[in-house]
């Protein structure tokens, strides 16, 4: 039985802004689903519609077997963690945790049991008498999660809960969240703009742009086989290099790069090269010239910025699939490669970078859709 189903859901705000457009999504019971996309893509609106804080303009939302479009948030058996945690500042941690249960008129003994159980699970026992202002960011985040978990909800909704934490704490909390989900098995819908969170946490990720679903699938599949130019440019850090190219008679060209791809129809193309797929060219490997601009050492690898002997293209979620030409040599756009520290090229040098043909991604320049 599915946990949450969105069926052709559309949300148009007063003023005409379409935040979510014909979104259909089926989240399995117990699944950890990520909604990822840039700011303004509709992911938070979709989450708020599941929570009941926004009403869909059209379409239906089901939690379990029940259509919940007209069901108030309190009756949907969901719990939500907000981006800024939304802890009640005038209540202690203990009262914050107990609050949802008191509203449901749960017996006092049961409230006490559940509060202490959750406090122990999240290492909050020593903080129960404190108020939110006396807590660190990580502690507040755990209290917010505790307040959601204490309700034993059917669906757990999280709206960018890690975005206010420092980098180190974010890494720790990510692992903690994954462990918690593994232990509790609650259907979880997690909204983020951070693709690292998306890749590491989700069993499946839904990539959204302009209110529309771009691709749905396991993280590795979305990474290895992006459905269109937007997903290709959004998932992956550094992002995929996108070059203006074409295919004529089964031969794909993008600047100096040439490969054979029989079966690909004649068309203008966008050729995608992941930074980690680029390597110092060897004989026989498709390659192109790379002018090194800046080298960023990260310790275990180098991020090399520069320009390719090809026209670079911007993958913008807001532009039509015929992505904007940035001009000769991609004025304003740069190519990026990830290399081993042993291969460190000198800045302002010219090298040849090659790529295995199987690692080259092709997209139709008009529609942006991937060509397999």
């Amino acid at each position: 039985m599915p946990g949450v189903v969105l069926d052709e859901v559309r949300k148009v705000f007063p003023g005409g802004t379409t935040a979510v457009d014909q979104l259909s999504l089926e989240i399995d019971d117990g699944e950890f689903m990520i909604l990822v996309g840039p700011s303004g893509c509709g992911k938070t609106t979709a989450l708020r519609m599941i929570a009941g804080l926004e009403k869909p303009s059209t379409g239906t939302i089901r939690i379990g077997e029940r259509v919940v479009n007209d069901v108030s948030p309190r009756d949907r058996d969901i719990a939500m963690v907000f981006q800024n945690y939304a802890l009640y500042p005038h209540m202690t941690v203990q009262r914050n945790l107990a609050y949802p249960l008191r509203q449901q008129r749960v017996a006092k003994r049961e409230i006490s049991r559940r509060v202490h159980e959750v406090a122990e699970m999240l290492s909050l026992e020593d903080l129960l008498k404190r108020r939110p202002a006396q807590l660190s960011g990580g502690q507040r985040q755990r209290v917010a999660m505790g307040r959601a978990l204490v309700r034993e909800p059917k669906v757990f909704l999280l709206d960018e809960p890690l975005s206010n934490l420092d980098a180190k704490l974010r890494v720790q909390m990510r692992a903690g969240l994954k462990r918690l989900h593994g232990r509790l098995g609650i259907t979880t819908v997690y909204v983020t703009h951070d693709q690292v969170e998306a890749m590491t946490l989700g069993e499946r990720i839904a990539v959204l742009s302009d209110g529309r679903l771009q691709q749905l699938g396991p993280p590795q599949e979305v990474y290895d086989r992006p459905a269109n130019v937007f997903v290709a440019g959004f998932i992956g850090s550094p992002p995929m290099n996108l070059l203006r190219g074409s295919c004529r008679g089964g031969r794909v060209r993008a600047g100096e790069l040439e490969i054979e791809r029989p079966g690909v129809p004649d068309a203008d193309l966008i050729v995608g090269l992941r930074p980690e797929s680029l390597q110092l060219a060897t004989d026989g490997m498709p390659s192109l010239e790379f002018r090194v601009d800046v080298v960023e050492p990260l310790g275990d690898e180098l991020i090399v910025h520069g320009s390719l002997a090809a026209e670079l293209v911007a993958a913008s979620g807001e532009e039509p699939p015929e992505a904007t030409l940035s001009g000769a040599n991609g004025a304003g756009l740069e190519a990026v490669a990830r290399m081993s520290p042993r291969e460190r090229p000198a800045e302002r040098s010219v090298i040849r970078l090659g790529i295995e043909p199987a690692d080259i991604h092709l997209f139709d320049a008009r529609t942006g859709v991937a060509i397999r």
Partner: protein
Amino acid sequence: MAASPTATADRLVLIDAPPDKPRRAWPFSPWHMFLIPVAVIMLAPLVWMLILSLETSSEAQSFPPVVLPSGPHFHNYVTTWNSEPFGNFFLNSAIYSLATVVGNLLFCSLAAYAFARLRFFGRDVLFVVLLATLMVPFQVLLIPTFLIVKHLGLVDSVGGLIMPNLCSAFGIFMLRQFFRTLPIELEEAARIDGTSRLGILFKIVLPLSLPALATLGIIQFMWSWNDFLWPLIIIDTASHAPLQLGLATLQGAHRSHWNLVMAGTVMSQIPMLIVFLFAQRWFIRSIAFTGIKQ
């Protein structure tokens, strides 16, 4: 002049510290030359009121004015208290002020929350109309208000004093502005947790609005305690009169014992002073930040 070293990639560089600012010749700021006279002008009537309250009747009415009384005649306070039913006046003022404070805190917060958070047809237009009523002087509303109170049978009663002042456009506006500064996620979290709209107002919003509520309470208390015009219109019987109306009876048609009037005035301001001393912290903070905090 101290110099401090700073390292660059190539060499150590000494940087001179900026020169010390010249010391002021005077022990106070030039602004004090303006502020002190203004403070004197503002305090003068209050000091004069105190001095007059301690003078004899003839000293209070002599010209040129007697600045230093012959002695502190505290019996003026006793005489004033006994000359009129001041106990009644204080009680009526206390009931009037406290009732209007409670009424305003309750009704203004209900209306302000509706304007701040609920979506209903005509909300914004209605709010503009409400604001527009702030520009209408009370004197224009005096007669229609009197007729309503008369129709309700509340003329010459404390109820007639209180009823038209149970809610104010200013209070609604002030609380609405404050409520809008509270993060809406708190209310959304409360909705998900199962709290009703009224519950959100009383359990979440109002506990977080204590500074604004304290300010509204103090302002309303001050207005009600010092109110003279409305009590003058609505009250006929001395036993129903609040303090300011009662003080006016000390002034005769042809002659007034100013020392007694001032003694009564000093007594009437003591509760206001106490309220302000206890709550000024919230009062000043709330006036400064209402409508500005985001």
